[in-house]
């Protein structure tokens, strides 16, 4: 794993050749986000856009993820922002369509097939078998975000562990924890 520090500004240097391959890869990933939402595909998305193609840097990826988490709305929006970082507004549109298109088509097919039924035994076995894998993948997401956060040292890890402990021990809204992280950054703790 190399720490590529390619910085591309979507405003002036969109990676145009990236659109089609990014769309296909993200659409594939959308089908793999089962049992853990779309957070669990972040490590592979990062591997793809940072390590394999050098379209953006690991730091840009972590920043995009953090910005999206700080905003209201569904948590797939980091993918929109990653698409924007890679190829401007066309990239944002492509990434969003890729991550929403296949699941939306499947959801419509599902609701047409069975109007109001709870998952059956086969679906339950699928979920039961996939949930442990999802857990491992969400841990991997936390890990790669920490590695790429631009503060991969003792202090960055301390802030991350503190944030995790606060979320696990209290019922505070995560947005305040993110704000506290920003304050800690400005105050020079990270």
């Amino acid at each position: 794993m190399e720490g590529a520090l390619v910085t591309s500004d979507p405003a002036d240097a969109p990676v145009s050749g990236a659109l089609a391959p990014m769309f296909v890869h993200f659409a594939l990933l959308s089908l793999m986000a089962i049992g853990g939402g779309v957070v669990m595909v972040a490590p592979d998305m990062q591997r793809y856009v940072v390590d394999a193609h050098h379209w953006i840097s690991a730091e840009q990826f972590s920043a995009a993820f953090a910005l999206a988490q700080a905003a209201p709305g569904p948590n797939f929006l980091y993918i929109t922002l990653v698409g924007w970082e890679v190829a401007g507004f066309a990239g944002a549109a492509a990434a969003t369509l890729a991550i929403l298109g296949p699941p939306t088509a499947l959801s419509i097919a599902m609701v047409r097939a069975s109007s109001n039924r709870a998952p059956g035994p086969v679906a339950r076995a699928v979920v039961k078998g996939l949930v442990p894998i999802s857990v491992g993948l969400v841990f991997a997401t936390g890990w790669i975000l920490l590695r790429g956060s631009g503060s991969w040292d003792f202090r960055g890890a301390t802030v991350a562990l503190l944030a995790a402990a606060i979320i696990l021990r209290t019922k505070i809204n995560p947005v305040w924890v993110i704000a506290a992280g920003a304050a800690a950054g400005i105050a020079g703790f990270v």
Partner: protein
Amino acid sequence: MCEAHGHGSGPIEVVGVTPSWTSSPPRASIPGVPPKISPLVLFLAFSQMALSGFGGVMPFAYRALVERRHWLAREDFAKLLAVSQVMPGPTICNLSVMFGYRAAGIRGSLAALGGMVMLPMAIVLGLGVAWHEFGALPAVREALTGMSAAVAGLILATAMKMSRAVPPHVVPISLSAVAFVGVGLMRLPLIAVIAVVAPIGIFLAWREHW
């Protein structure tokens, strides 16, 4: 009031139910009976949920759909959520699509999904543009570094919470460990890891190995 149980063939065939976007507040929801709602009302309602959803939209969706608007009975929300989680993709978006479809067909699902997605997307892109505009300022850089570390912690906390649903048994723990090491440490493609680990996990779950 309960005579219109059009159960069976089609997903939305409740006949003769007063549309709930008419002036009077919607009736208490009848389990199993999806209300009919206009795409515009769906779009606005889901936009509102999405914009309230700092740090996770699902609790706001529950509050709006079940408690405030009475569009769904509690048990129907639970069923819808379970199916949305089984489907691949963002859970809240799957839920929006399926609810919207039952309320107003294809147009309803697109309206609900559009409401869930469009305004938050504009906000996130605005943040991205602002970041590129002001990212050179030391304070902005430092704030974002701190935010990134905190968000990494939030995700680790999410993983810890999810792992509570997994019993402390050697099989599921091994599955988690293989996924973490393969994708997080060895940086193998997710497709390859899933292709190997998922069939094993599903088979062992089916045979009740934990």
